[in-house]
């Protein structure tokens, strides 16, 4: 297991919410779903660079706040018929702590 960095406690992220992590690879949005799964995406919408962290989280997707593109949290792919892909980052949950792996 290489390159895992502790980010925050799960409780620091609201359910169906997100937090922004500043990294050397740009801002990363960490999302928490209703089922307490966590996901990481580059905080830039493939459409016009909107901050995905500020969107509304639903199911395993987030809706971009600027023009409403829906992005899947697992793979960063826009939900059809939209097109585009946001970079994903590996994020895991361990004993109530959120960890991030930088590539």
């Amino acid at each position, binding site marked *: *297991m*290489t*390159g*895992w*960095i*502790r*980010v*925050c406690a799960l409780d*620091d992220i*609201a*359910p*169906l*919410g997100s*937090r*922004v*992590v*500043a*990294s*050397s690879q740009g*801002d990363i949005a*960490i999302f928490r779903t*209703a089922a307490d799964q966590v996901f990481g995406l580059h905080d830039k919408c493939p459409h*016009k*660079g*909107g*901050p995905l962290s*500020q*969107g*509304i*989280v*639903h*199911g395993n997707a987030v*809706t971009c*706040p*600027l*023009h*409403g593109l*829906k992005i899947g949290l697992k793979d960063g792919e826009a939900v059809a*018929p*939209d097109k585009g892909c946001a970079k994903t980052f590996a994020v895991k949950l361990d004993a109530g702590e959120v960890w*991030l792996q*930088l590539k």
Partner: protein
Amino acid sequence: MKKQKLVVVGNGMAGMRAVEELLKLAPDLYDIAVFGAEPHPNYNRILLSPVLAGEMTINDIILNPLGWYADNGIRLHVGKLVTKIDRVARKVVAADGTEEEYDRLLLATGSTPFMLPVPGNDLPGVISYRDIKDTDEMIATAATHKHAVVIGGGLLGLEAANGLKLRGMDVTVVHLMPWLMERQLDKVAADMLKASLEARGLKFLLEKQTEALLGGESGRVAAIRFKPAPGYDPGDGLEIPADLVVMAAGIRPNTALAESARLHCNRGIVVNDTMQTYDPRIYAVGECVAHRGIAYGLVAPLFEQAKVCANHLANFGIARYTGSVTSTKLKVTGIDLFSAGNFMGGPGTDEIVLNDAAGGVYKKLVVKNDTLVGAVLYGDTADGGWYFQLVKDGQNIRELRDQLLFGQNHVGDGGHAGVSKAASMPDEAEVCGCNGVCKGDIVKAIKSQGLFTLDDVRKHTKASSSCGSCTGLVEQILASTIGGAYTPADAKEKPICACTDHSHGVVRQTIRERHLLTIPGTMHYMDWKTPDGCATCRPALNYYLISTWPGEAKDDPQSRFVNERAHANIQKDGTFSVVPRMWGGLTTPAELRVIADIAEKYQVPTVKMTGGARIDLLGIRKEDLPKVWADLGAAGMVSGHAYGKSIRTVKTCVGAEHCRFGTQRSMEMGVKLEKMLFGMGSPHKVKLAVSGCPRNCAEAGIKDIGVIGVDSGYEIYVAGNGGIKTEVAQFLCKVKTDDEVKEYSAAFLQLYREEGFYLERTCHYVARVGLDHVKAAVVSDPLTRKALYERLLFALKDYADPWREAVEKPAVRREYQVIEIREAEVVS
């Protein structure tokens, strides 16, 4: 358990739509087999016309490729004609001997073209216009022969004629009736249509009855002969040359198979409202069906039937088909023509007509008992969708009547250069000014993706998905591309979003009646289809809950759009803007100094005045927002609601305080209103203005509430709007005192808060419920007014300053903090 067997006879548009709907509801219920007589998978029959016209190819119009059948485990017997149904053994048999047993059987055999019973109708070169085979033959003949005759001047005949002409043939349309498309048009519109088709080189022979088709030396058809009409002049020729004769004189429901199985047929296969035939195991949909005596020949009603049928096949048992109103659009590029409902009128109906022959515009609306029952439009069809909606909804149009003919005033909308003729727009013309979508993009998406609804087009192209002002144009493009296959959704019944089947109205009512208090609770009770909704329904639910049950239901920040979660306005680069509160637009030198200091301290890149007469600090990073608010708070100021679905600002003129014309103290009145409404959430944004005299310098005529001072008191106007479409506010009432202005304004806003649908501005709300309804609650009945006023004050009493909370409460403040990580300390 062994799966039940479903057999479908007819691999066409209605049959496959029913199967698609069924798979959505119950993907694993049946083992499905499909028979189709044509050697093709299901294709979009209505696009045969663009194929003939050379605008598309057969490949473009396939709806369900062979892979789709395989992926869904469907056995497709392509090219096999079913010749027998054995209802006792419950099996069907095809001409080549293939058999399938069924537990349930779906007949979707479409129709057969009517071939005139005249001598020579079986000659080579005499065809119908129904399928790919016919289309291919027409294309091939156009390459080798010259003279084409189309029998029948209806929708189908004209599309065939237009296509053959574009393929280089010399085309004559022969029609029995005195004018073209008599089932869809009145004479005036039909004559305009004829003139513009003649200008394209088509020829017409009206009131001509065919006597015989004559063969030539090659054995192929060579000429057509007519019966002499009464008063016939022997000098007129009775024959014209014809190398190709296309019969487009009508269709007959294809009931042969059903009749051979002794199923009751009368015009079509007779079905009830659940699409069931007289044999309860056998269902039928599409053109082969007669429902309440009507056989439909357009796609839209067939799709409705398919949906109902699927519901019953899936054992849900709740849907009913009760018939359809249809509309017509001719798919000839460049011709704008639309008709719907009962356009001929008759006893008990009135007509509203506009006839501008020189300008090429004709509109006729047929009205009966204060409802619109039919419409014919030629030349300018931008409002076709709106009229069709009015016909379908049966909406009372008494109040609209004097403006009805001028349409929904789409032309007044910004963003598409006032264009109102969809079909004659060039492909490069921009339709959606918000998302930069051109007509060509939309047409391409409709054709290549097989789109049928406005929602589909919005999803695929983004056209009309932002401000919505081009919706009418997009609907028209959809209609002119797929013809009558397009039906607008029922506005009243439209589900909030794909997560639910319920409309805004039903959800609001259920939340109230069932005393629902949480979003998950509502979703559970109302059978939401997704676990936690989406960005469309969650904000709506959140609003309905907290506005219906103030003090009980808890606000859910995660179900709010970012602006309302962060209490500032997001900008395109992800920064925010802050608009410090200036009650009524008043400020002081000290406040201006504080604002200036903040702008310098946080290096605010842009400072500008807003349209609501406030100062906007643009480009503040989210992390800095709480600091900016703390600085404002330290100086005794608060931020403003310049971003929310809430009260925005009260704009004022200087009024009697300073103005030489002023009759009322408008600044003071404005401050009172803004303070009373502090923190009021609403279905959409709410803007007020107060002017001190009728010169109205605060532009109160385009506000949700506009107050205008007069010598004897105030006039109150409501439901104005200065946005996408300018709406002038309507006079509500006149009052005497400042307290009355507060009470009446609050009552109107509370009524809107309780009855408005989420994202419905006051102008749309009042248009929906009617100004009389508003007056009854707010003006004529003091008790109701007082109760509304009290309820608003109750809802606002505990409103906590959100900016202070963000400064003081760590849990809220977290929302604004970026997490810093130390990448050097990687655990390896």
